[in-house]
């Protein structure tokens, strides 16, 4: 187990450095002068130079790269040229909103996707199966921003059931932070009405974010279940007279979960990336929105910071999936 952890840790550090180097290069080859943008449309050349020098942009690119990477090794992600604040502070400010959104979306994906996949496998080729197939194909195919706007128009404007955007109503004060996840904090502080309000705000963005993930979990789970339900051990279990419910829920599902888990791990990272679109549509103040606004103003360090953070969570999620694999399939433990 120790060597497993150490191996994972080394991969983590190596991958993170790789991501940082790559993103640094990509963002810096892109044309556009962030100092000029920050200085404003009328700024004179010497005013632009002041900003350039203050942010180290006057140095040659290789030198900037070395400065950035050595800072990174000390845990310093640099300073945003637009907001003039350390990127790490800003990430800490925005990450909880994204994490909360992704967790809720993930929960939706798993708790709706897995049972639906299971049921459509059990009732294969029935009307239910066809219905879920349409559902899952549209889930993978629908563009998030379009789907988001559609849901806003229907549920918020037409029906007036849910708020259009944001994380809380304007005059509501967030609960005293404990975990910085509003839903959790509201529960821990016993502020139940605030919890419901926060929940009503998170539903639409979480649904939009989870839809493609839910759809792929559903499809993978269905396909696996179909295969497992035809396998010898299930036939044997049926021959032993075990109840159908027991066979499906206990024996078949567990075996069908391996590829589903891999899909969940993959989709977690994908979801973090998708927050860029979903957070923009719903004005969800997370790292996706932060990345978009930074990229639009050629503010590179926050972009690298966000990429690193997403990469970090991606790797962590996949590590957890690896562990879960080992838990579900004992053959993998010593592999």
């Amino acid at each position, binding site marked *: 187990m120790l060597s497993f952890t150490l191996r994972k840790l080394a991969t983590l550090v190596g991958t993170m450095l790789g991501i940082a180097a790559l993103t640094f290069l990509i963002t810096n080859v892109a044309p556009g002068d962030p100092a000029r943008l920050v200085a404003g449309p009328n700024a004179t050349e*010497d005013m632009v130079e002041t900003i350039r020098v203050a942010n180290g942009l006057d140095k040659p690119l290789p030198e900037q790269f070395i400065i950035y990477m050595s800072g990174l090794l000390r845990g310093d992600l640099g300073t945003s040229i637009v907001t*003039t604040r350390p990127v790490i502070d800003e990430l800490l400010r925005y990450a909880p909103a994204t994490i909360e959104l992704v967790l809720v979306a993930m929960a939706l994906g798993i708790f709706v996707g897995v049972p639906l996949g299971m049921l459509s496998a059990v009732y294969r080729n029935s009307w239910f199966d066809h219905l879920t197939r349409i559902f899952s194909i549209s889930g993978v195919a629908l563009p998030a921003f379009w789907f988001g706007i559609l849901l806003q128009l229907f549920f918020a404007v037409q029906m007036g059931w*849910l708020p259009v955007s944001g994380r809380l109503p304007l005059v509501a004060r967030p609960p005293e932070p404990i975990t910085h996840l509003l839903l959790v904090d509201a529960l821990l502080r016993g502020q139940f009405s605030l919890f419901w309000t926060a929940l009503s705000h998170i*539903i639409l963005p979480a649904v939009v974010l989870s839809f493609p993930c839910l759809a792929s979990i559903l499809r993978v789970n269905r396909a696996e279940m179909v295969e497992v339900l035809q396998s010898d051990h299930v036939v044997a279990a049926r021959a032993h007279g075990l109840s159908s419910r027991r066979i499906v829920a206990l024996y078949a599902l567990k075996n069908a979960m391996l590829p589903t888990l891999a899909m969940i791990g993959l989709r977690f990272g994908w979801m973090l990336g998708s927050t860029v679109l979903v957070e923009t549509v719903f004005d969800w103040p997370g790292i996706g929105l932060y990345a978009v606004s930074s990229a639009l103003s050629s503010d590179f360090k926050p972009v690298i910071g966000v990429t690193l953070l997403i990469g970090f969570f991606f790797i962590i999620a996949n590590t957890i999936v690896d562990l879960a694999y080992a838990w579900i399939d004992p053959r993998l433990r010593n592999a």
Partner: protein
Amino acid sequence: MKKNLVLAAMAAALLSGTLMTSPASAFERTDNGEIIVFAGRQAIPVLDPHVRYDWSTRMIQQAVYDALVKYEGDPAEIKPWLAESWETSEDGKTWTFKLVENAKFHNGDPVNAEAVRYSFERGLKLNKGVAWMLKDFLAPEGITVVDDYTVQFELKAPYAPFLSFMPWWFIVNPEQVKANEVDGDYGEKWLTENAAGSGPFKLGRWEPNVLYEIEAVADYWKGWPQGENRPAGVIYRIIREPSAQRASLQRGEVDIVEGLTSDDYVQIANTPGIEIQNHKGMTTFGIKFNTQQGPTADINLRKAIAYALDYDALIQIYNGAASLQTSPLPDAMRGHIDVPDIPRQDMAKAKEYLAKSQYPDGGITLPYVHVAGLEEARRIGLVLLENLKELNINVEITPEQWPNMVANGSRVETSPAMTSVYVTPISTDPDAVAYQYHKNSWGQYYAMAFYDNPEVAGMIDKARASTDWDERADLYAKIQTQIVADQPEVFGMLQNRRWAHRDYLEGFKFSPVRFTGEVDLYPLWIDAE
């Protein structure tokens, strides 16, 4: 058991969708009164009045800070504010401002001459944001405190537009700023998300990228125009998508929005309870030619293109909420004239000019660059594409991200043949636009044409140094006529400024000199009846 849990979770998810519907609240009420909610697309990363300005930033700066004078009304006029009066010496180099004596900062400190001196010194020394307006004409040493409530500016050279920039130099409280200084940074770090002003509002909640709240100062030294009806505060809320802005307004989650699409404004106008503000602004739209390099260096080709464009289509694209430019200077600017013979569509003339150019038969392809995502600019490109087909000129419509467009436009070699550019002047003084056609402006996005006419530049220099308005007006008339004759760009249209708000929002006062989405929050109030 597992399945039951799943079912329970699903049921909870569905139920939550139907049960937790909060009724649409018209405006936010608090114990102190009504809060006006303004939705805009643009965040406020840095509030420091001497470091950054754009429309959203300046809207809040104007609310929490005061300046010596303030722009109000349409046409915009400079009104006394912290300064009750001012005078200028005959040579136009010395400006003396007499301050009101009852103004105080939010912490109770008086707004005196020293605060004014410190604020201007700070702005000049930081050399950011507003500094460009005055730095060539004013040194920090040129500002003197005559007495507690009199301050004097000694300019290096006469500079007629001086007063027109004063509304954008906000006064900060030196005591508060100095107390929060880190390593001699003039309190720059602190003022990023804090304020030290004397304006009608003070800062409330500050949640970057989400909302910015300002609270009304009950005993504001200048009083409130709406008296007892003044709001308790304003929340400026970031809603980036026009569709979400529209939905929020219709649902009553916000009281006023700035960023709807042209079509949205038309559609929403008929909604009961919603009013549209539609005013002629100062933002010009032009198609800048690269006048130094490539085919568009040929004036006859530029003229041919200018005569080929269907100008009425520009207005149609904005659903009528725009008016054609009749001069490089917007209509609301002092000294504006309607330049005779400014090109309008005339294909005969267009062909005549083309015949005189180096490309008598056309047969060339010209890029038309616009900011990616600006739908109207793209549609204008399509109009141009259609019109220039008749001249056998092909147009390549190229969307470009704003930072890249600025970068390309900063050098002659990389500036495209045609770039669509919106420009908003910062003051009502004609110099604010005229100087864009001065060679000293090369490298800026609004000077992408790299226009070079020494005669015009000479007149611009002369006009900005003159203290005699009649002489200046005369010079600006000539400048406008000559620029149109040289056709460094297609002079397009002035896009109207529009806002949509609930009908109970009162006190909206438009002034063309404000930036695109900017609203004066001071006179607003809610008619709760």
